[in-house]
Structure formats: structure tokens, C-alpha cells
């Protein structure tokens, strides 16, 4: 438990669990709006952990946090838009 005080170790654990969840959703053939949203939310959380705890941008100048987190929002937003169009 002491190990989990290190944000990088905590991030690693969450990233591994999140990957298993995405893989499992694929295994059970999850598809459609809720599956897509769930997988995008998981990818977003994972990406944010990499940016904040692996790249160590949590304490970086705000501009760089905004640029990288903004990239994540942009990419997930575009993917969501494209998938939403495909479901209509």
C-alpha cells in the first residue's frame, strides 16, 4: 500500500486495469453508443494519467498541460463525432 503513494505506481495500476476492461469489452462484443462512450472515457482517463503522472505535467506550466490535455479532448471529441455520425 505504501507503494501506491507514488503517483506513477498508482497510474500504472489503473492503466493496467483499464486496459483489461477495454480488452474485455472487446471479448464480449460490446458495440454501439454506450460501448463506444465507455471505451472513449476509459481511453481519456488513461491518456490523462500518462500526461499527468508519467510525463509529469501535473506541476508543469499551465500552457503545456492545456496543450496536451487539449489534444486529448480534441482527439476523443473527433472520434466521438465520427462514431456518432456512423450511428445515425
Amino acid at each position: 500500500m505504501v507503494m501506491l503513494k507514488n503517483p506513477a505506481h498508482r497510474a500504472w495500476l489503473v492503466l493496467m486495469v483499464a486496459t483489461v476492461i477495454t480488452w474485455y469489452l472487446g471479448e464480449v462484443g460490446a458495440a454501439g453508443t454506450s460501448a463506444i462512450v465507455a471505451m472513449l472515457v476509459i481511453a481519456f482517463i488513461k491518456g490523462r494519467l500518462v500526461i499527468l503522472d508519467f510525463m509529469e505535467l501535473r506541476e508543469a506550466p499551465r500552457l503545456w498541460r492545456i496543450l496536451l490535455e487539449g489534444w486529448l479532448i480534441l482527439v476523443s471529441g473527433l472520434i466521438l463525432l465520427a462514431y456518432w455520425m456512423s450511428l445515425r
Partner: protein
Amino acid sequence: MSHASTLTLPSEAPAARRLPGDLAIWVFILSEMLVFAVFFAAYAFARAKNVELFNEFQQTVNRDLGALNTFLLITGSWFVVRAVQAAHRDDLPAVPRNILLGFLCGGGFLVVKVIEYAAKFGAGITMSTNTFYMFYISLTFFHFMHVILGMVILAVIWTHARKGAYTRKDAHGLESGAAYWHMVDLLWIILFPLVYVMR
């Protein structure tokens, strides 16, 4: 709180906001990420026009190997964070050791990817098989090249780390290399669900 304790424990002092590594690497990382953003969006919008085709052929890619490679890149990133943290506390022997472990995870990724490609190419699949496979091959191969570049960078910082180049005082080179390596991980974290799972 005496003055002395803040001096002996710099980690407790309110740290100024600092960008790890060099500014140049972050500009490079951002430009790489924008290129991938275009690729990801191109995949998603091409899929919107060919949903049946993409859904059908996505079933034929190896999701298990895709997930295994996600584990390898995340763990590789984790080792490299540990190398940076070791440098920050002047634990010099732990720096090259963790860089090497990160490098080996990258090597594992390449091996898994080659196995995956061998199965696909062996089945006669090429870029011109269909739109899905055009994207699958070009996106994953473009990323594959970035894993190789990331490993080259890790190899370079490993040789410096062995000479004790990265310390609490100056770990800029290590931090820059680490940031690039995490970008490779970050890109795969989007690529894996997008190409292998989302339908």
C-alpha cells in the same frame, strides 16, 4: 517549521511550475501528436462512411496481442518514470537499470507486432486489401516506427545514465527522452481501442 527543514527538504518547498526536459522536445512531441490526431480522425471518419466493412474486418485483427502490447508500453513507460524518479533522488544505479527495463518492454512490443504482422501478411493481407486494412497497416506501422525511434532515444540516454549523467541537479536529457517515450505510450492508448475494439 524552521528555515533549516525547508532547506534540507527541497521536495517540501512549494515547487515552481517546471516543464520536465527541454522545450524543444515538447514542441517536437506536440507536432508528432498533431500528425497522429489527423490520422486518428481520418480513421474515424473513413469508418463512418464504411461502417459495415470496418466492423467486419476489425473482427479479424488480434485483440489479445493488441492488449498485450498495451501492457508492454504502459509498463515500459512506468520503468522510465522510475528512472526519472531515481535520478531525482540521486539513486544513480537505478537510472540505467530502469531505462534498460523500459527498452526491453519496447523490444517486446516490436516482437509482438512482428508476430501480428507476420500472421496478417502470411494470410495475404496488404494495404490494398480494403480501406480498413489500409488504415490498420499504415497507422500501426507509423506508430511502430515511433516505438523504434523511442527505443533509439532510450539507448542513447542509457549510455549516458551508465556514466552517472543524470542527477537531482540535472536530469534534463533523461526527462526529454522519457517524455518522448511516454508519447509513444499515449498514442497507443488511443490507437488500441480505436482500431482494435471500438465498434
